[in-house]
Structures are given as structure tokens and as C-alpha cells.
């Protein structure tokens, strides 16, 4: 019981077009992640769903019913605010209890629910503290508890893990996914962290400058980015893009290199293209004829792997290599390309070329 559908949301703040026709369809019970860089309009989208923002245009449907004009209270949603918005004069306990108090639950029910939530989120020892006496991460967990304490139509979460340290964040990620599975509610989860999005989401909507760039499963978004921008935003290290064009059965780079033309592409000869190559689809070991000549530029050892920066002409490739890989800058080497996993984008529009042949 909890579908959220927004259609054609538009909202401007003065000259800033925060939302420019956002349409999303969140299925019941799904973990739906809205991913985008800072200023993309993620918070504004959530506030629009919650009924906190007066829209210029568009509609919000909850459980199939038009809720565009409803008050926030009537929408029956819970939200974790990016700034936590914990009530400053109240203890953590009172903060978590607030949604239940507002809906007139008995105090024994409240006590039981708060206790359950606080043990779930490991904040039992914070219950009598006020927000000013908590760290950012602790406040964030109390804010999560305040949202999760009730069974609303949907949970709206605005970057609820950003202020936690890395270890806790990874823990909480798993924890939240587990909570989602056990509670079974609908989650609309906003983040600017693509790892969070890919690891937690059933579905991801990628947002940029108030426009939805792509909606799909994490795999779809990662493997079939709809455009050059999504390809660059999702994935770490970010995708390398090389200017090129097709010529017969070859791809010819602006820097003079050539590669066999991927079988699946139908791009006509001479059309300016961008070849997108992810680090894991490249290799510094030479095999086969699909390789690019380059020069070693730098190394980033990351423990489990080493990212090798290779300069091809004036362009830079990021290549994933074994952690034991060594080399000296300036050294010439060949980068082998897995062309079956490469991406081609129109250099003008940035849109991905159709990959029907793949």
C-alpha cells in the first residue's frame, strides 16, 4: 500500500528552475533512489512529494489518488530531512515519538515503538539527549528513527547517510536495505552518492538540473547509460570518453588511433562520436588487436586494485589494473579495449547510440 507517482513537476525559485518537468513512478514496496549531483533538485522533488513545496505545475498521486492539493499531514508520509530538522528543545525520545503523538497513539504504544526503533538504530543511550548534545551522525540516526517509527504510505529520505563516517555508512546501508525488506514499505531515497544508489536501489532515477536523465535498475543505469552525462556520473573511477568517428569497419580516434568498429553499432561514417570506456573494461595487458597506444601518466593504488592513468594523445584513459601493477610515468604501453562493453554517444547530443545489435 504505497505507490508514489509524480508527473511533470515544475518549480522555479526566482530565476533558478529547480524542477523542470520531473516525472517518476515509484512502485509499491520498492526502494527507489533519486540520484543526482548537488543542486539537481533532489530535495525539491522530495518536498514536492511531501506537499511542502507549492508547485508551478505537475501532479502528485499517492496510491493512485490525486494528492496534489493535500496537506502534508493528509498525505501520510514520513521524511528524513537533509538537515535532520530535529526539534531542538526536545529529547531524542520526544523527537522519535512526535509522529505517534501527533496521531494520538497511546503512551504505551509510543514507548514500545520508540524502544524498538532505538534498538534497531542503536541509539538507546541517546534517548534522553537533546539534538545539541548529539553528533551529526547521531542526529541523523534519530531522524531516521523518527521517520521509521510509523507505518506511513512511503518513506522519503533526503541523503540520510551523508554525515556518517564511511564504516558506519556502509553498515547503515546494509541496515537500511534490511529494514526495507523487513518493513516492506515504499522508500524514496535521495542521494548524491552513486555507490549508495547502485548498492541499495531497486530502481534509480538520475536527476540533473531538474530533469530526469534516466530511470532504470542499477544495472541498466550502469551498463546502458542513456547519455554521456549519466555515463560520467555513475561509476567510479568515472568513464573515459574519447572523441572518434566510424569509418567503414573501423573506429578512428581524433588522436589518430583506430579500433575495430563494435559489431552492434549502426553509426554512419563520419558522424562525430564519443567512445565511452569504463576502467574495468580496459586492461594494460596487450592481447588482440583492439588496443590503444598510450603513455603512462600516473598510478592510483587503491588497495584491491590500481587505477592507471594512460594518456592517449591529449585524452586521458583510466584503466583498472592488478594491485601489483607497476610502471614509470612516461613509459609507453598499450591499452586493450573490451569493445563489447564499450559505449558510444553522439558527440553533439550526448545521447547513447542505439545498442539494439548488442
Amino acid at each position, binding site marked *: 500500500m504505497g505507490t508514489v507517482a509524480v508527473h511533470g513537476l515544475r518549480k522555479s525559485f526566482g530565476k533558478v528552475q529547480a524542477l523542470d518537468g520531473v516525472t517518476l513512478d515509484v512502485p509499491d514496496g520498492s526502494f527507489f533512489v533519486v540520484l543526482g549531483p548537488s543542486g539537481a533538485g533532489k530535495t525539491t522533488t522530495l518536498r514536492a512529494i511531501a*506537499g511542502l513545496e507549492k508547485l508551478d505545475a505537475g501532479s502528485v498521486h499517492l496510491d493512485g489518488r490525486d494528492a496534489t492539493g493535500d496537506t502534508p*499531514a493528509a498525505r501520510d508520509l514520513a*521524511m528524513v530531512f537533509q538537515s535532520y530538522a530535529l*526539534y531542538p*528543545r526536545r529529547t531524542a525520545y520526544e523527537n522519535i515519538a*512526535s509522529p505517534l503523538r*501527533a496521531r494520538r497513539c497511546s503512551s504505551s504504544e509510543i514507548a514500545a515503538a520508540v524502544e524498538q526503533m532505538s534498538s534497531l538504530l542503536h541509539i538507546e543511550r541517546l534517548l534522553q539527549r537533546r539534538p545539541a548534545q548529539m553528533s551529526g551522525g547521531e542526529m541523523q540516526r534519530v531522524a531516521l528513527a523518527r521517520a521509521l517509527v510509523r507505518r506511513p504510505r512511503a518513506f522519503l529520505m533526503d541523503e540520510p547517510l551523508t554525515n556518517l563516517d564511511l564504516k558506519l555508512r556502509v553498515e547503515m546501508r546494509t541496515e537500511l536495505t534490511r529494514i526495507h525488506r523487513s518493513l516492506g514499505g515504499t522508500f524514496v531515497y535521495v542521494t548524491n552518492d552513486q555507490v549508495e544508489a547502485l548498492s541499495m536501489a531497486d530502481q534509480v532515477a538520475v536527476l540533473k538540473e531538474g530533469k530526469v536523465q534516466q530511470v532504470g535498475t542499477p544495472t541498466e543505469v550502469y551498463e546502458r547509460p542513456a547519455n554521456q552525462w549519466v555515463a560520467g556520473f555513475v561509476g567510479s573511477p568515472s568513464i573515459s570518453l574519447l572523441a572518434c568517428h566510424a569509418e567503414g569497419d573501423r573506429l578512428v580516434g581524433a588522436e589518430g588511433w583506430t579500433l575495430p568498429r563494435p559489431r552492434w553499432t549502426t553509426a554512419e561514417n563520419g558522424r562525430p562520436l564519443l567512445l565511452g570506456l569504463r576502467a574495468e573494461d580496459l586492461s594494460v595487458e596487450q592481447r588482440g588487436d583492439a588496443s590503444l597506444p598510450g603513455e603512462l601518466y600516473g598510478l592510483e593504488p587503491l588497495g584491491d586494485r590500481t587505477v592507471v592513468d594512460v594518456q592517449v594523445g591529449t585524452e586521458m584513459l583510466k584503466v583498472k589494473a592488478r594491485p601489483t601493477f607497476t610502471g614509470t610515468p612516461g613509459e609507453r604501453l598499450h591499452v586493450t579495449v573490451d569493445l563489447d562493453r564499450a559505449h558510444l554517444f553522439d558527440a553533439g547530443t550526448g545521447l547513447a547510440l542505439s545498442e539494439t545489435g548488442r
Partner: protein
Amino acid sequence: MAVSVNEAVSTGPGRDHTPSTRRRGGRGRSVLEVALLTVLAVVMLFPVLWMIETSIKENRDVYAIPAKFFDFKVTLDHFKDVFAASGGGRSALSVSFLNSVVVAGVSTALATVLGVPAAWAYSRFSVKAKKDQLFFILSTRFMPPVVVVIPIFLMYRQLGLIDNKLGLILIYTAFNVPFTIWMMKGFVDEVPAEYEDAAMLDGYTRLQAFWKFTLPLLLPGIAATAVFALIFSWNEFVFAIFLTSSDSVRTAPPAIAGLIGGTTVDWGLVAAASVVFALPVLVFAYLVRKHLVAGVTLGAVRR
């Protein structure tokens, strides 16, 4: 008010100095500072001290030439005269003090009740031409009372509000509402709107969210604003003297002024009445002095 002046004097200069002047001045500077502050304090405080002295001097000493600074006989007769009439019963002055309490208290309460929600609305909602409206509201405060007192007198005569406490209450409320809106808008702006957003998602209505979550955070600001409004109404003279005449309606300022005039002036009584009149203001200002300074600087930083 003397309290806030002292505070401003003692904290102000230290903060405003640029490091270079402080370094150059060194010790000599601080001597000069102390000297100037002493002169300033004497000039500012002498009339107040003199008033207090006069209020406890016997009549003979009040009129003594040369004036007696220290060796006079202390008496509380003047204070007794402020409250009790010579033939027994209440004095006209004490009635005027009571009137002042009622008029200032009620008008401040009204201005707060009207002004705080208005300030909240201006802070939280997008209002058409908000800046112009706020400026218009403030501009009513620019008007010196003497300018509007004649038209108001004429209107009040039609409405039967002349020589009527309600008339004074209304006019003071009208003057204090804009002030309250301006002061309180600053305080409301300081409270994040997201507390109310969160409360509304919890299931409260917008008004409940304001009442339960924002209002408690505004109380210090409301107290500071109310004290300012109270002091304005308490001190107001022009409207009071034009719009009231009978002893039973008059507030203290015109009543005290009325003591001066005639063939002889009972300076002891005037001084005692003035001390009694000044006391509540001093006490209030002292109680909320932190908020007064905070409130004033808050406004200064914002715009």
C-alpha cells in the same frame, strides 16, 4: 534604559577597535578611554542622580542655595504624596500610574497577539510585494506623533474615544504592531522553517506546527519585543496629552508634566513621581537586557 546605555558603552568600543589603533594607543589610549567614559557617565547620569536626590530631600533642602549634594535630611514624604492625596485616599497621580499600567499593558498584549502571527506569516509565506508591504508597515513608524495627532483627534471625537483609555490603547497598539512585526520577523527568520515542515509530516496542521514547535523558540524574542513596546507605550506623551484630559483617564507622563506649572512647583513631588515612573522601565530593561542587546544586534546584522 540606563542599563543598556552602560552596556553599550562598556562593550562597544573594545569590539570596534581595529588591531592597529589598539597597538598604537597602548596604555595611553585606555586612560583617555576611561576619562571620556567618566565624563560621558557623569553627563548622562547626573540628571538621574539629581532627580533621585531631590525626591528624598526635604523641601527646605530642595530649594537651598547653594545646592546641597550630600548633607541633607532624607525623607520619604514626597513618595507618600505621590500615592496618597493630602485629604486622605488616593492621589490623582496614583490613579494616573494605574492608568499607565492598564494602557501600556493592554496595548502591548494586543500588539504582541497581532504582530507575532503576522511576522510569522511574512517570514514563512511568499506574499505579493512582500518588501513593499514590510516597508509600508515600517514607514508608519517614521511618522512623528505630532503630525498625526490632529487628524486622530478629529476622528476620535467622532467616535467618542477622546478622554477614553480605549482610545489610547488603540493608538498605542497601532504604533506597536508594525514594530512588533519588524522585530519578530527577524526572530522568526532565525528559526528554520523545517521544524514546521517536519511537524506537518508528523501529522500536525500548519497552525499546530507553529504553535507547538516554533512559538516556544520565539519566546525570548517575544519578551524582548514586548518590553520595547511596553516602554514605548509607558513613555508616550504626545498622544496622551492631546487625547486625554480628566484625572481618571490620564496616564502618568501628562500627569507628571501637569505638576509643573502654576505659581509654585513642588519639585520634590515631581522628582518622586518621576522616580516611581522610571522604575518599572528600569526593572524590565534589566530583566531582559540580554535579549535587548541580542534583539537589537540581530536586526542590525540582518539588514
